[in-house]
């Protein structure tokens, strides 16, 4: 039965590729939405900075965060919309999940490159001539190093995978179950926070965080919840019914 096993591996890859292509079947607009959102945020910031000297003096803006939220929402909606159709037409959940995560990760890499390019352009143009450090959030991305690329990209991957996880959870548990689940998560987090307060643990935690640089958190530690969400999303989705 070895030939069958080989055959199946090829089929999983080909099915996941079909799922990826299927997500591009309508047009590229859904994939471009985070860029459109980012462009909107950028234009608003440009207007504010040209009008306000105070803003120029401060030079900083969190406007680039918009693309991360958009990425999360797009991944969520995409899983929610495509699961019933794709798995209903007999793609396996595994192929669907692999294909969906792959599309979102590739998209995150592409957006990371775009942000990286705009970051360079921003420095070349003297912060768009008006001191708007839009693509240099919190001064974290001040050079054209691979680290700058990672600073943009790793959180994008995280947002995408978290979105896939949320999409999987809303499919598996339905709207009501999903809301109950969210309430339960908040309760547990609240309980954990209470416990930490009870054992006077906050100093230790904030101390640990202070010892990590923000860069290390964004490029390194963020991969931990990313992997957790990615693996968790699969376990949630594998028993979902289309």
């Amino acid at each position, binding site marked *: 039965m070895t030939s069958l096993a080989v055959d199946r591996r090829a089929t999983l890859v080909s*099915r996941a590729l079909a799922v990826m292509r299927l997500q591009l079947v309508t047009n590229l607009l859904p994939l471009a939405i985070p860029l459109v959102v980012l462009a909107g945020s950028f234009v608003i910031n440009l207007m504010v900075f040209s009008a306000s000297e105070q803003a120029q003096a401060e030079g900083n803006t969190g406007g680039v965060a918009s693309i991360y939220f958009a990425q999360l929402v797009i991944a969520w909606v995409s899983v929610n919309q495509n699961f019933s159709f794709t798995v209903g*037409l007999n*793609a396996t959940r*595994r192929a669907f999940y692999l294909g969906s995560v792959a599309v979102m990760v590739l998209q995150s890499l592409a957006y990371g490159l775009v942000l990286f390019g705009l970051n360079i352009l921003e420095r070349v143009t003297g912060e768009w001539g008006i001191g708007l450090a839009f693509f240099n959030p919190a001064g974290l991305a001040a050079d054209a190093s691979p680290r700058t690329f990672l600073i943009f990209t790793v959180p994008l991957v995280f947002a995408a995978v978290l979105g896939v996880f949320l999409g999987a959870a809303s499919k598996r548990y339905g709207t009501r179950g999903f809301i109950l689940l969210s309430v339960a998560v908040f309760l547990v987090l609240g309980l954990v926070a209470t416990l930490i307060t009870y054992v006077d643990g906050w100093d230790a935690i904030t101390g640990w965080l202070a010892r990590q640089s923000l860069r290390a958190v964004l490029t390194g530690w963020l991969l931990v919840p990313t992997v957790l969400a990615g693996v968790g999303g699969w376990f949630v989705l594998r028993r979902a019914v*289309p």
Partner: protein
Amino acid sequence: MIVAVKGVTKRFRDVVALDGVGFTLRENTIYGLLGRNGAGKTTLMQILTGQQVATAGTVEVFGERPYENDAVLARTCFVREAQRYPDDYRVKHALRAGALLFPHWDEAFAQSLVDEFRLPRSRAIKKLSRGMLSALGVVIGLASRAPLTLFDEPYLGLDAAARQLFYDRLLADYAEHPRTVVLSTHLIDEVADLVEHVLVIDQGRLIVDEETDRLRGQVVLATGPADAVRAFAAPRTVLHQTTVGPVARFTLRGEVDAEARAEAERLGVTVAPVSLQQLVVSLTTGAAGSATPKETTP
């Protein structure tokens, strides 16, 4: 044999949707999966295609377990009455998706079906009428040419002409590209000439698994003087009976051969075949909880 189902039971909390169902499906045959609403037909098809998992029992499709099996599911197409499409899909997008997902997809066939069913290619799917939505499902199911194709009540909202078109195209394409088709339907008489083998599910149990032609011969309607009909019915199973004054009408299950016909003639009992639909109705009429067919009427 491409499907083998053994002792499949499916429970949802306290509801038993399927109860020890077992059967096999042969290659290149059209099956009718019949039964009333809520009998368990959709659940059974979901289990065959790995979309649901049985609580107990085994399912083999193409010799393997279908759940999460890419090799098996790529050769299987399941068109549901309530097939969902992404919100931004137009008809043409669904066809492209079909071409991507089904290795045996025939694009030219799909396009000709779209024309015949008069489907507007650029219309958003969520703006299609119920009939058009069903037609789109039919197009995907037929053009997929999947070696195992399952249609779950594919005709909702389809007018008579479109249903006839579906049956005609299914038969014609089946003749050229034989495959196994499972058709779940309520419109039994419409598909009676189409299905070669009948499976009837009632309250989660498989109560008929028979060639259509043999099944037809097995159930008859006997009409005549009440005593005579009762005598004729004695060695057979009575599925349904009504007695009006001195005249009785019994629906009977059991082979009626030449000898039996001669006996019926001697007794003055008229023996007539029943339609497939009447047959299924008499087999599946009964209150919830009564697993056996109704034997008496007031």
